[in-house]
């Protein structure tokens, strides 16, 4: 994986912008940013906890050719897809998608940090959802709680006990899901077939692009 990182670095010597434009999904939008900062200020997660580099700054770093700084950044993984930035951007830059594109690219070339929580969430979510045709909430929660070990998982579960019981009482959570039971999708096979087709098409597209 890290070989791909070096390969890309060499291929786009001194032109990180071009690398992002060609390799990251929606990367061609980076050049359109006019540095107004509306995205950075609109982001609820950035605003409350502060990313190391918010979107507009990541775009500027890319344009300034700061490859290492961008690939080491945490910002693009922090996006919760609220789309505030996307709908407000005065340049109509699809900021949400660009951030995902950069995160995905960093992951693809092996530069995403291990155990990055949002990346872990999305991977787990994807596996969980595609397997069952719908999200198995209990299993998803378990895998998130226990990602940092059993002790941490139990601690987190205890913390959330009250909320969990409330949800069960309200009929919003089925404890049997832990065993793979509970709500199911009507046609799991059909969904799997659709996903397979989608993957096939995407692969074809990628091949055509390359």
């Amino acid at each position: 994986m890290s070989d791909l990182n070096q390969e890309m670095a060499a291929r786009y010597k001194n032109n990180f912008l071009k690398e992002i434009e060609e390799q990251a999904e929606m990367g061609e939008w980076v050049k359109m940013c006019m540095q107004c900062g509306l995205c950075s200020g609109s982001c609820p997660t950035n605003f409350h906890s502060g990313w190391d580099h918010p979107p507009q700054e990541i775009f500027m770093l890319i344009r300034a050719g700061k490859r290492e700084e961008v690939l080491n950044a945490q910002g693009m993984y922090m996006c919760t897809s609220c789309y505030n930035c996307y709908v407000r951007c005065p340049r109509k830059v699809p900021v949400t998608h660009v951030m995902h594109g950069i995160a995905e690219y960093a992951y693809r070339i092996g530069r995403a940090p291990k155990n990055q929580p949002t990346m872990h969430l999305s991977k787990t979510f994807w596996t969980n959802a595609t397997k069952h045709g719908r999200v198995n909430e209990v299993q998803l929660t378990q895998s998130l709680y226990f990602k940092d070990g059993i002790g941490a998982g139990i601690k987190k579960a205890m913390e959330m006990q009250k909320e969990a019981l409330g949800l069960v009482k309200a009929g919003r959570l089925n404890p049997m899901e832990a065993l793979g039971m509970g709500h199911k999708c009507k046609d799991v096979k059909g969904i799997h077939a659709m996903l397979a087709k989608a993957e096939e098409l995407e692969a074809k597209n990628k091949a055509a692009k390359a």
Partner: protein
Amino acid sequence: MTSVVATNQTILVVGGGISGMTAALEAAETGKQVVLVEKNPYLGGRTVQLYRYFPKMCHPTCGLEINLRRLKANPRIQVLTLAEVTGISGDKGAYSVSVKLKPRYVNSNCTACGECGKAVQTEIADEFNYNLGKIKAAYLPSNMAYPQRYVIDPSIIGTPDAERAKAACKYDAVNLDDREETISLNAGAIVWATGWQPYAAEKIVYYGYDRFPNVITNVEFERLADPHGPTGGKILRPSDGKEAKNVAFIQCAGSRDENHLRHCSRFCCMGSLKQTHYVQEAYGDEGKSTIYYIDIRAIDRFEDFYQKVKANPNVTFVKSKVARITEDKAGNPVCNGVNTEGYIRYANAHDLVVLAVGMEPSVKGVQIPAEVMSDSSGFIMADPANAGIFGAGCATNALDVNRAVQSATAAALRAIQVVNKVARAEA
């Protein structure tokens, strides 16, 4: 029936703001016959609603007085107020134009003595002051209103209030039977100078203009600062009448934004820089202004003005497009965003937020009842095929007053070129 004398050598000017007045006056002072059509009951347009002009900090009515005197002294201009052009047919050198005239309910006998205003009880929203206050339903729109004649609001027609107005007038100037009429007139050339309107601020949802009383627009702020405005020139915030000593100005509210106005409205940077003076004028060193901006566009010699404001320790510049406005418990609007110069997050509470809303043509190209070329924002573009209809002022571009007047002067010549040709042909 209103009668207008017009021929194919007449120039029709649509819009009686500073651009339309200028085009009309320049043409008339060159010996041309002009008909000037204005939608409002008075001339002067938006400039009259400004407190001061940048960069001289002088008063718009000063120039208006001169223009009105030029107008009064010039028999070649016929003015139609409460009038709108509804149709244009024919071709350059021979247009036929229909003009809809709304009733004023007050005829030329009016001496502006004010008795009808005293008699009427109904109050209506004061449009001249951007609805920030109320006025009587029989009113003189402003001190400088021309024609200097009262207007009776249609809402009281048929009510006892209208009868009161009529009874109060000793000069038989109130005509409650006044009706809308449409007249048609000829013109050889047309100058379209319908000006601009402030962008509808409520469309910028994240600034909460329609939710937060202390978020207002730049044009409204002009009225607040004006001693003849609804607060008598005191800068008081709408929610509780508190003195607004800490004022934020948000640039590009609508402008330079593909979700709102594609273009840069040009005047708003200078407008806000000017308005920081109002805060300083009102509260001295206690008055603090913060300008949130993307680029300060103090173009050409206006740079001097920017540098002077920049040197004022009571004015802070933050390079940032404010991301959203919230309200704190004290009712203060809070500007949230990121200062992009060095990435500094902020949540600044202010007494009052002024949105520097941009300029859009008040009649967009497609709404003009004639064939004109316009750009994606609806501003009229010069037509290489050179018809006899010419844009002037802010109908053609986002312009400040000075440039709008230049544009109008140029438009007057273009119209004269057409009617001179007609004259040569008819000679």
